[in-house]
């Protein structure tokens, strides 16, 4: 039985020192509830991997969980900079972090490479940039088939990928749709996958639309039923993006003290996503809910 609680899944599958892929779909479906549980369990020395991470990476860095970030962009997408990331990178507060800068494409290729079981993937991207000079996982080499120069992007194999999805069955076969980013490769690249689902459905529902099954259950170590687990990021068909929450985070975390207050209020004190949502309040959740459903036309798998 893979269906478990967030607390158990993090306890079991995300030890200190792990390399963790989060935010694989970019701005939407960021597994905030999983990140918050990692903070509550006091994990340390993590390596965070993700193309852009919005404010989840900023929170985990601020909480002192992180030793290294391998990402293309770290900040607050709609508001600008992430203050915790900046404090850590500039002043080693609360601790020193190593930042390994990728571009979106090269991070995607690093995961794709691991998903393919290949040692690296070639690209022209980052030639001439300082990313290529400073990131040891990007190496220039002469093309073996012509006279060109290429960049070898070394395969990146996270210990665990945490992927938020719309629905899954209890074995972890998962449907996700909308913005996919690097989620499909990310789940295949990682040694273990934790699926966090808005809904747990019967296996027949997943089997009815196999093209939408982007994570097969045999790769999945744990499945968690966590409605609203991605708030304040959006989940297509479930809830919208809480833009104000990102703006408030930006204002409230300018100072270290401000961040600590924010962390106590939204991460340390609520012991579960349920308590977090009670604090957010029904009215705010209601406002974020889907106003008008737009179901896809059914695809006929008959024969």
């Amino acid at each position: 039985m893979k269906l478990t609680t967030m607390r158990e899944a993090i306890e079991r599958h995300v030890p200190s020192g792990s390399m963790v892929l989060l935010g694989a779909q970019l701005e939407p479906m960021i597994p905030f509830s999983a990140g918050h549980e990692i903070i509550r369990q006091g994990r340390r020395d993590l390596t965070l991997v993700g193309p852009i991470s919005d404010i989840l990476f900023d929170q985990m860095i601020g909480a002192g969980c992180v030793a290294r970030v391998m990402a293309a962009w770290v900040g607050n997408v709609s508001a600008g900079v992430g203050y915790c990331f900046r404090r850590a990178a500039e002043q080693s507060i609360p601790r020193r972090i190593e930042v390994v800068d990728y571009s979106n494409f090269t991070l995607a290729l690093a995961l794709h490479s691991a998903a393919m079981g290949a040692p690296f993937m070639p690209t022209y991207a980052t030639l001439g940039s300082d990313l290529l000079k400073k990131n040891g996982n990007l190496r220039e080499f002469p093309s073996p088939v012509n006279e060109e120069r290429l960049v070898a992007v070394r395969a990146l194999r996270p210990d665990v990928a945490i992927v938020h999805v719309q629905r899954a069955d209890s074995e972890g076969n998962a449907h996700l749709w909308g913005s996919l980013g690097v989620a499909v490769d990310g789940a295949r690249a990682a040694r273990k996958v934790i699926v966090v689902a808005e809904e747990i459905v019967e296996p027949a529902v997943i089997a009815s639309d196999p093209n939408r099954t982007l994570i097969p259950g045999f790769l999945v170590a744990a499945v968690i039923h966590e409605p609203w687990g991605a708030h304040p990021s959006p989940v297509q068909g479930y809830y919208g993006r809480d833009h104000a929450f990102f703006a408030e985070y930006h204002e409230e975390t300018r100072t270290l003290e401000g961040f600590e207050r924010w962390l106590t209020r939204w991460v340390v004190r609520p012991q579960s996503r349920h308590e977090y949502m009670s604090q957010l309040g029904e009215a705010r959740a209601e406002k974020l809910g889907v106003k008008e459903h737009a179901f896809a036309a059914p695809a006929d798998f008959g024969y």
Partner: protein
Amino acid sequence: MRFRTPSPSGSRRRETWTDVAVRSETDLAARGFTLSELMIAAAAREINDGELVFVGMRLPMLAFLVARRTHAPAAIGLFENGVIRATPSPELLYTMADPPNLRAATECGQMLDVMGLLQQGRVHVGFLGAAEVDRFGNLNTTWGHRDRELRRLPGSGGACDIACLARRTVVLLVHDRSRLCERVSHITSPGYGSGNGWRRAQGLPDDSGPSAVITTLGVLRFRLDGEAYLASVHPGISVEEVLSNTGWTLRVSDELVETIPPDTEELRVMRELDPNHFWTR
């Protein structure tokens, strides 16, 4: 095309960007449009009909939509998260993956799907923002300088990829001496490097590189040797103002023109898309 190098300005107090901006906003308001609207119209004209466009957020997003609704009805928008979209999102967006941008999109794929199109050379133009741009169009969004202190910025995102691989890139940014600098301290996204033949020497595709830098004061373009020159100044802005707010001795085109203001149709579309002037203040 020939260029002249202007003589350095006199000893009077240098007008800061803020002074210039406030004055130019007033001038522009009298003309019936805002500075953002002028920049969006300029950006929209960088898109030709039928082109594949790597769309950024904020002003470039509006520029793409204005182009689609006016002179480039067959332009297609690509987003780094894997979304391909021809029609405008039904609502204002804060991020490219906001639910309204995915509903009725042309395709919702993976990041590698759109990055693959980019690497194939199929993407005609990509829009980028930056903290710093230099004389040769190199961009820095990794480590910036504010008040002489080093500031860690968010990083590349997809900007480095677009700068390497799109046929043309268009940069939008605020024009001041710290942002338009002689040489960026960190090349996040390569432009023409140090000039002549640099991109080719790095192994970057021949048919690629910066095409325009649209600032709050004017539009810069690039000579064949990779150096930027002033191609147009915005209405009410003098060449001297541009030069004194640029961190190197900027060359000026002999055929310098005034940036063409947004026409009635472009303004109508912008105001329909952004009725509360959220992006076009």
